[in-house]
């Protein structure tokens, strides 16, 4: 038998020689010192090559790795992205059952909205800043932080005020929860909530009424800025046209990203995107004729990426 060529040696090292073809190869190696020496050389070459490739790990967002290649990433046309989103959602919309983004009884609370109406007035808070009145307790936006573990629900005093991403210590909890059945929507990157969600105290009410109750609480410190718990129906997957209708004729998307699905839960419409850390959610709602949106990210999502994605939200 002639000497073993490098392709055979590498296939042997990779464990890719069919079992039926192994015996003659092994017999040759046993008898040929030169091929044994070459096999060892190729083994070292393979190991060195693997080590080199493994150096090229995906960098954290916001860092520029040494030897970075600054190549222009072509921006696909916005219309093309929307067309893909529409075709994607048309393909999957009927195939999914909704699931609750928030576990039943997870509780929602009204955050202290800096843009809220002055104390004592009965006007609805201004949402021009794009901040929703109601923020999920277990999910935070890029501008806020999760309350420390063990903090009482609605204990707004325990929440640190929104700070710059570079200054605030941000903890972003998992935005999505898994379905109870097959867990098909569970992302392995998403950690389960550490503590069970608090119970729901009140049924959902119009946002204006909730704002009034918040003002009452502010006017009477004895009441405290406690949480107003809401109960929402489970989330359901919806079609693109339905999402647009629910938001009064407009839907916001993140330019350049293709959504996994659209969901509706109570007043919210959510555009769900995949990411390496889990699902990224662009949550929107219609408030006084205007669409307010919040970008919700899973734990570990790079802060710089969040800021950049927020800048790419388009109507």
């Amino acid at each position, binding site marked *: 038998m002639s000497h073993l060529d490098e*392709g055979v040696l590498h296939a042997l090292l990779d464990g890719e020689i069919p079992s039926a073809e192994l015996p003659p190869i092994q017999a040759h190696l046993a008898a040929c010192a030169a091929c044994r020496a070459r096999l060892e050389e*190729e083994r070292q070459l393979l190991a060195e090559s693997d080590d080199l490739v493994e150096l090229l790990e*995906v960098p954290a967002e916001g860092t520029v790795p040494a*030897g970075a290649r*600054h190549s222009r990433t072509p921006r696909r046309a916005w219309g093309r992205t929307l067309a893909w989103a529409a075709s994607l959602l048309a393909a999957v919309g009927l195939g999914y059952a909704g699931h609750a983004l928030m576990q039943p009884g997870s509780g929602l609370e009204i955050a202290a909205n800096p843009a809220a109406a002055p104390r004592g007035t009965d006007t609805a808070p201004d949402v021009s800043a794009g901040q929703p009145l109601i923020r999920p307790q277990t999910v935070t936006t890029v501008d806020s932080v999760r309350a420390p573990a063990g903090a009482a629900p609605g204990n707004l005093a325990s929440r640190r005020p929104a700070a710059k991403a570079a200054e605030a210590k941000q903890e972003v909890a998992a935005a999505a929860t898994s379905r109870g059945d097959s867990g098909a929507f569970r*992302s*392995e990157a998403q950690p389960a909530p550490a503590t069970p969600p608090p119970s729901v105290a009140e049924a959902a009410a119009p946002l204006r009424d909730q704002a009034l109750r918040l003002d009452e609480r502010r006017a009477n410190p004895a009441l405290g800025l406690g949480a107003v718990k809401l109960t929402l129906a489970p989330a359901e997957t919806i079609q693109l046209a339905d999402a647009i209708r629910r938001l009064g004729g407009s839907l916001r998307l993140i330019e350049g990203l*293709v959504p996994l699905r659209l969901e509706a839960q109570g007043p919210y419409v959510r555009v769900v995107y995949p990411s390496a850390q889990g699902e990224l959610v662009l949550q929107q709602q219609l408030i006084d004729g205007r669409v307010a949106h919040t970008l919700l990210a899973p734990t570990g999502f790079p802060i710089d990426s969040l800021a950049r994605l927020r800048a790419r939200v388009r109507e």
Partner: protein
Amino acid sequence: MTGFPAELFTQYYASLVRMLYRRTGDRDRAEEIAQETFARAVAAPPRNPRPWLFAVALNLVREEGRKTVRQGRRLVLYKAEQPEHTEGPDEAMDRGERIALVRTALDSLNERDREALLLKAEGFTYDEIAATLGLARGAIGTTLARARRRLVEAYRAGGNQQHVAS
């Protein structure tokens, strides 16, 4: 079909992004291409998802490469200092410089060799590499042997040179 795209995503997304990043050197581009690939998988679910996903993704990279004008927009910057004494190039360079050299060495491979190497790094079998790249299975061993050798040789050669930004 329920859960199918989500399962695909969970199983392959990170690996696909990593391969694309190693292929392109651009994290944003890697994620965009990965997302586009999964969108296509949802629209037309493949029977053999893994080779299909990676093949589509690599095709998208090639298509973008043909369309994108890169002159004057591509900057490769690295610097290797001459070792002051007789020790290997690795000891004289920090990790960042090593990464830059690996990137350059990888770019010196031809397209098929580079892609075969990156797919193998993602745990692809020879059958899967052959299916993804449209090669004969019997050629994969030789392709990988050549790719590995050229990568290591190019890396070693780059470690003994000084380069400037161009």
